[in-house]
């Protein structure tokens, strides 16, 4: 009876692998070769599309921007959300609940609604066209969810641990750095993965903030024309843009699976 499991699993695996195959296969064709034979295996493969995507479509430069901005935003997000989660879950201060509810409520505001005030603010602060501006923007947009998750995660840890550390003479910052940050590892890892994907894949916020420099997903989006798209070039771009994320996944495979498992079990 094991085929009852095996066949659907194989189909599932195939459905995950096929898009990757389609992308790479077509990236190696030229436009004419693609139009004449969209699904067939590439006849005379060429890396010209990769060269064009890297150079002419500037994905090389854009990749650097994406890495800088994603890394910056994720680090800032993890640090601030674990600080905020620590405070909201463990410390007692006035209006703590109100603050938490306001943060929760801000989760429900769609990005589109705040675009204009957001853009005005960024202009007012002179952050348009700066990578730092985009890092701050991502942090602002994704922070509420991170704070919510970290608060929920830290709330399940015994408060006595923090009290023990206070008795041990640790300052709040020392407690955060030495106790809360390492204890928050599973949640931080989950957030790290999620936010890396969000930041990496974002187009809209990046378009508004970084107009002269661009991030790689914006570069990809720009490869799609108004009426027609050079699909092989687009495929090459997508492959280039996905490569760092895939490498990251292969690198951190164990931790990522553990992180997801911990998130799932502990809810």
């Amino acid at each position: 009876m094991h085929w009852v499991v095996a066949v659907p699993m194989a189909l599932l695996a195939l459905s995950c692998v096929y898009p990757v195959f389609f992308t790479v296969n077509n990236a190696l064709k030229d436009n004419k070769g693609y139009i004449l034979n969209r699904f067939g295996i590439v006849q005379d493969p060429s890396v010209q599309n990769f060269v064009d995507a890297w150079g002419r479509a500037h994905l090389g430069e854009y990749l650097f921007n994406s890495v800088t901005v994603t890394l910056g935003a994720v680090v800032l997000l993890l640090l601030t959300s674990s600080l905020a989660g620590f405070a909201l879950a463990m410390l007692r201060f006035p209006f703590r609940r109100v603050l938490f509810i306001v943060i929760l409520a801000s989760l429900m505001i769609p990005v589109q609604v705040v675009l204009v005030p957001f853009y005005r603010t960024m202009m007012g602060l002179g952050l348009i066209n700066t990578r730092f501006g985009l890092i701050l923007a991502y942090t602002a947009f994704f922070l509420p969810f991170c704070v919510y998750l970290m608060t929920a995660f830290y709330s399940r840890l015994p408060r006595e641990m923090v009290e023990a550390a206070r008795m041990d003479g640790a300052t709040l910052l020392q407690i955060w750095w030495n106790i809360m940050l390492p204890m928050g590892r599973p949640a931080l890892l989950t957030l790290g993965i999620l936010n890396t994907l969000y930041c990496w894949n974002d187009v809209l916020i990046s378009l508004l903030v970084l107009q002269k420099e661009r991030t790689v997903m914006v570069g990809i989006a720009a490869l799609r024309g108004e009426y027609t798209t050079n699909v092989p070039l687009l495929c090459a771009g997508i492959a280039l843009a996905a490569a760092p994320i895939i490498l990251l996944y292969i690198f951190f495979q164990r931790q990522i699976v553990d992180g997801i498992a911990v998130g799932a079990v502990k809810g």
Partner: protein
Amino acid sequence: MSQIVLNNLSKRFAGVEVLHEVSLSIEKGEFTVFVGPSGCGKSTLLRCIAGLEEITSGTLDIGGTRMNDVDPAARGLAMVFQSYALYPHMTVAQNMSFGLRMAHRPKAEIDAKVAKAARILQLQPLLDRKPAALSGGQRQRVAIGRAIVRDPDVFLFDEPLSNLDAELRVQTRVEIAKLHQTLGNTIIYVTHDQTEAMTLADKIVVLRAGRIEQVGTPMHLYDDPDNAFVAGFIGSPRMNFLAANVTATGLQLGQVTAPLPALATTLAVGQQMQLGIRPEHLDQTDGVRLPVTVEVVEHLGATAFVHCRLDSGETLVAEQRETAARPGARLDLHFDIARARLFGTDGARVR
């Protein structure tokens, strides 16, 4: 001069007062135990002393210094939590050295102190393990080790034995007693188990609903309780209380007549009282005779607890060395009226 002095200390949580003007002095080197039923405010009082809760009103002095607003770490205290509160991501050694490392003490000093604590608590083989790889008793010792390393003037324990099984609890209790003898520090120890209180304490503080009922040595509280609550709380099995009526010649306990014990107070005839008799005192061969029906007999080996019913319907427990009592059988219990304690209907002791 007393080491710790509480003066009219009150604590309110969101408007609800849980400690009412508590006043208490604790001497240097004394082993003080806070006992009382669940929810009476033992932990809260301990945490106020530790600095983990703000004191709403009243004062706390430690070593002659006002400590109300002093940071917990600066009060010269160390605390062992009920859940141990070990840091799960640190080894035993790192757990114990945490406080010293936060204070940026030299490495040699840290190592020496950890080694010393580990020796006292026999933790040497466990120093590189994480808490998850320790048994309950071992975790308990690490928690104590973490307190010892800080070299505090006062140790605070909040129900440190409640997560251990019965056997380990007795063993650890003895270890804590030894530790107190070795180190000689002041200890404040919270428990709701009167046996722990009796065996460990130099001084017991009985709390009820946020108020101190009585303070004294274990034997003092046992022999001379201020009220029915303390009398009932201290001693195991708990003291029996029988309704008593004052007559011209003595006390009427249902059908039974008993002489009055020696009292400084003169009682009015017809006054309602409670007579307290400890189970272990219902073991006499003469004295006041109480005819009872046996309901249940619990044999503990050396002694037995005999649960009985008086003809008045009141129940009581007698502790007897040798008994042939069988459930349903009639039995005559005897006690010495001088051992009994008399209380008013409000619970206040009548001496």
